[in-house]
């Protein structure tokens, strides 16, 4: 999740070009971050120490961790902890950008520190996003929000998991995305019964078309009736699954038919209880709960 957000940040800050980012993201699908880059990202080693250790590793054909421990740069515990972070895709993204000569080690660390600072995200949320841990990421978003029986958090978790499963495995929750304008195309479905919930899904036409195409696995030419039906059906699917989950907990919910929100009935984003922006390759998809 985090690699897409970090990539987006690098793009916004003009630290990489779209083609450099796209190339690095594609390459990252088949690679793992080295221990040295993880140690850099964690502030455990300096760029000079990493380069020196890499040099020795190349010369002596020994493991990076072993050399770093021998030289006192890392402890055995540090190495174990870093090895457990090798799923870290945003660090891998940095590593590839270094390999491609787009960043120096120092430049990468500077960009990473700036991202951590500018994002304002807590370390626990950053870690959850980095691990792709939907439960923890959603729990961090809900920290401080009244949701005693986790009804809303359960919904958001299911929604994100459904996007991962049916639309885009690399989708990222983007907690820092701005509030969407109220005139975006939007789809709405109302659930009522033991609890009341209104779900609104909105985004630019380009994003909704991307969602529609990925969900339906059809080639769609434009945001036509079929594309709109695909977005609506995805919303309907998630809400159906949620109502089934609730039913297993003896919570009865009835679903009204999903509908496209008419353009003369602007969505009242400011009145929402929960807003979860999700970053797809084409842009932001906004989930709002009322």
């Amino acid at each position, binding site marked *: 999740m985090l690699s897409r957000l970090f990539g987006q940040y690098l793009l916004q800050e003009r630290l990489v070009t779209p083609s450099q980012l796209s190339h690095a993201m594609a390459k990252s699908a088949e690679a793992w971050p080295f221990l040295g880059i993880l140690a850099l990202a964690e502030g455990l080693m300096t760029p000079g120490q990493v380069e020196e250790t890499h040099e020795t590793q190349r010369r002596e054909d020994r493991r990076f961790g072993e050399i770093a421990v021998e030289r006192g740069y890392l402890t055995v515990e540090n190495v174990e902890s870093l090895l457990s972070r090798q799923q870290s895709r945003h660090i891998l993204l940095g590593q590839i950008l270094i390999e491609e000569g787009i960043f120096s080690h120092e430049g990468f660390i500077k960009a990473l520190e700036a991202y951590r600072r500018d994002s304002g995200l807590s370390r626990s949320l950053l870690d959850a996003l980095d691990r792709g841990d939907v439960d923890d990421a959603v729990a961090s978003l809900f920290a401080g929000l009244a949701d005693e029986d986790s009804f809303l958090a359960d919904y958001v978790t299911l929604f994100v998991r459904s996007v991962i499963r*049916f639309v885009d495995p690399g989708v990222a929750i983007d907690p820092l995305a701005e509030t969407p304008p109220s005139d975006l195309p939007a789809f709405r479905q109302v659930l009522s019964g033991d609890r009341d919930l209104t779900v609104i899904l909105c985004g630019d036409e380009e994003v909704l078309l991307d969602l529609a195409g990925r969900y*339906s696995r*059809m080639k769609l030419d434009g945001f036509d*009736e*079929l594309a709109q*039906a*695909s977005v*609506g*059906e995805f919303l*309907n*699917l998630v*809400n*159906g*699954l949620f*109502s*089934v989950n*609730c*039913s*297993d907990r003896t919570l*009865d*919910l009835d*679903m*009204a*038919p*999903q509908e496209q929100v008419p353009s003369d009935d602007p969505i009242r984003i400011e009145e929402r209880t929960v807003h979860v922006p999700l970053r797809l390759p084409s842009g932001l998809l906004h989930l709002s709960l009322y």
Partner: protein
Amino acid sequence: MAVTEKKERPVVLVCDDSVLVRRMMRDILKEGGIAEILEAQDGLEAVELYRNHRPDLVFMDIVMPKQNGLDALVAIREYDQAARVIMASSAGTHKNLKSAIDAGACDFIQKPFEKEAVLDMLRRNLEGKWD
């Protein structure tokens, strides 16, 4: 491979308010050898089409505008006690399943559909009639 090779041509009615679902179901049914497929986008249309064409099998969504699938099921079964209606929905809650069974639905299929699951439904529900 076609589900049925009888000379008679089974007719299947697909009722769903989503044009996407109707399109997907049509593709799967054609692959299953069903040449005659009727489409309805709400319960009222489904009941009317059923009365006019007496299809051999109905795939019925539950959550739809105008008339939901459960009410349409009741209306169809009132008209024809032998009607074979499969409820096809994402909303397979205990309440909906019970209502569907009570009203005489012959099966239930959970969205999102897997092609094989739909073909299996065809085999099971058209078998006796067309083999």
